């Protein structure tokens, strides 16, 4: 299932909108929830039971923690001052118990569906090695669609209640709609309760304006996918399938193409999700912010898959680095190592947790774990050498705020990311390393191999023009200009000319139909 299926985007979505609008405001949220659950059941069949069960567990845990909090307040009124602390502590423990139970319950599902086989295979290897005469049976099963995204979103809700950031919702339908809203099921973004829950539940009418506004965003997503990603896919497929045949230059082009394709495909999907949200008056959070303009790897991850980065920052990075033991470590380290390197110790420990989990979240495989560690290492290096780089620049009289330096930073970061994503795409770590080796081994600048993938020179021209177009869009957006907003202020002729132009460009230059193979939704497997 992909949102780029025209039946989804141009038949299903309008149909949902019509049905939704036909109902009175009060019932619309229920209609949307029903449609979302049907959509899930359509893709994952009987696994809908898992979704319902999980939603109920999340809802109940929220209510449970809320009730404990209220009870605590009542009890606090009755007890003497010196007992207050003990009461607080005991309720905190109870709340924690509910939270942990809920997390275990939901993570257990995730583990069962996604990671069981990975651990089983590796344990079996280990047991073989130590000649233990027992083997775990590998079970073949399918995972519910988007379970990794869903689980993080669900956990963010209970964690926010636990931390007292939000109050538990007493309405199970609102919680369910927030967690199961159909466009977000496949590839996120991982929204927080405050972002979408209320506006989703309001049942705002889809107006002519919101409908067309949403479709503009959807078309933009389609352009990224059909004109650029599906062309890059031809290169990526050939190079990764048969890398031993190509020279170093071609392999580099393949590696580069993969990251750009991933960006176009993933962010294009998110454009569709956000566009659908806009129709219903829901502000789904942005997931990308011109990632290739990042000044370092750490900055990159605040611009790429933003909702995932924020999740790890809020629920892993700060809780770990600000835990009691880490705090005292920071304090001690700071006195010895100064302001920069002091917090780096506990920061790095937290960072390591973040990136191990990040890698593992993407999939059960050693190359994903390596992918995580690679980014951890790059960010760590960046942090360690930051003061020396700053000093060196000062000595060499390089102004780090100048455009030239920024461009250099972006290129450096982007190159580092290309190789990180190589480990992400390659079937195994060995292949990834072999590809890098071959890249430097078979050095050649012959571009003739590029013509052997089934793309002709005209396809390359369209691809390049498409990427230049996207680049210009990124520059404009980096400057903080909202292109869509600007277009909407133009008069009707210019506006319509732009829309017609975009639609026709898509229809003519999209890489669909005979001779092209569309990219499979990459993130939907996670």
């Amino acid at each position: 299932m992909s949102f780029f299926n025209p039946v989804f985007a141009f038949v299903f979505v309008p149909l949902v909108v019509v049905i939704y609008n036909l109902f009175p405001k009060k019932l619309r949220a229920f209609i949307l929830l029903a449609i979302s659950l049907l959509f899930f059941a359509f893709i994952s069949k009987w696994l809908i039971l898992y979704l319902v069960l999980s939603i109920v567990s999340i809802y109940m845990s929220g209510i449970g923690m809320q009730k404990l909090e209220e009870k605590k307040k009542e009890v606090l009124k009755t007890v003497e001052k010196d007992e207050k602390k003990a009461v607080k502590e005991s309720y905190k423990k109870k709340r924690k118990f509910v939270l942990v139970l809920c997390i275990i319950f939901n993570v257990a599902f995730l583990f069962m569906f996604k990671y069981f086989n990975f651990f089983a295979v590796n344990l079996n290897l280990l047991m073989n090695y130590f000649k233990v005469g027992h083997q775990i049976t590998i079970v073949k099963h399918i995972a519910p669609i988007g379970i990794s995204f869903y689980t993080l979103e669900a956990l963010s809700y209970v964690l926010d209640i636990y931390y007292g950031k939000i109050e538990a919702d007493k309405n199970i339908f609102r919680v369910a709609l927030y967690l199961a809203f159909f466009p977000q099921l496949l590839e996120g973004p991982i929204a927080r309760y405050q972002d979408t829950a209320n506006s989703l539940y309001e049942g705002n009418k889809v107006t002519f304006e919101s409908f067309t506004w949403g479709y503009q965003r959807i078309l933009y997503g389609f352009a990224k996918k059909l004109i650029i990603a599906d062309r890059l896919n031809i290169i990526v497929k050939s190079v990764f399938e048969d890398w031993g045949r190509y020279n170093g230059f071609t392999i580099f082009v393949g590696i580069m193409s993969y990251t750009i394709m991933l960006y176009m495909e993933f962010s294009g999907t998110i454009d569709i999700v956000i566009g659908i949200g806009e129709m219903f008056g829901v502000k789904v959070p942005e997931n990308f912010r011109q990632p290739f303009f990042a000044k370092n790897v750490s900055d990159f991850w605040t611009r790429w898959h933003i909702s995932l980065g924020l999740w790890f920052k809020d629920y892993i990075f700060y809780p770990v680095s600000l835990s009691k033991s880490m705090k005292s470590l920071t304090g001690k380290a700071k006195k010895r190592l100064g302001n920069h390197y002091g917090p780096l110790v506990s920061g790095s420990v937290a960072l390591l947790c973040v990136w191990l989990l990040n890698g593992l979240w993407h999939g059960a495989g050693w190359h994903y774990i390596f992918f995580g560690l690679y980014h951890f290492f790059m960010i760590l290096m960046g942090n360690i050498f930051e003061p020396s780089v700053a000093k060196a620049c000062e000595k060499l009289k390089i102004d780090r705020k100048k455009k030239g330096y920024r461009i250099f930073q972006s290129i450096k970061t982007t190159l580092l990311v290309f190789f990180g994503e190589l480990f992400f795409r390659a079937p195994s770590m060995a292949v990834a390393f072999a590809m890098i080796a071959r890249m430097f081994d078979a050095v050649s600048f012959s571009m003739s191999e590029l013509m052997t993938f089934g793309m002709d020179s005209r396809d390359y021209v369209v691809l390049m023009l498409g990427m230049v177009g996207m680049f210009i869009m990124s520059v404009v957006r980096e400057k903080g200009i909202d292109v869509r907003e600007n277009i909407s202020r133009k008069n009707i002729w210019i506006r319509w000319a732009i829309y017609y132009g975009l639609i026709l460009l898509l229809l003519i230059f999209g890489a669909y139909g005979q001779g092209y193979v569309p990219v499979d939704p990459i993130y939907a497997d996670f």
Partner: protein
Amino acid sequence: MEELIEILEDLQPDVDYETVDDLVDGRYLDSLTILSLISEIEDAFDVEIPTVEIIPANFNSAAKIWELIVRLQEED
């Protein structure tokens, strides 16, 4: 307040803390600097900043951070 600005300037000298109101959103303070900042504040003002409070809204300007400190001191 002055003490806070001193701490901030010590950590990240390139910012005019009187005027800037997007310290986090504008990426003047990265997560490591925030770790430093928190430990400095906790030492200097004898408060404990819980993880939940570490959201951009609380750290986007010196004034906001000061508000947070005052609020936490009162809560204690």
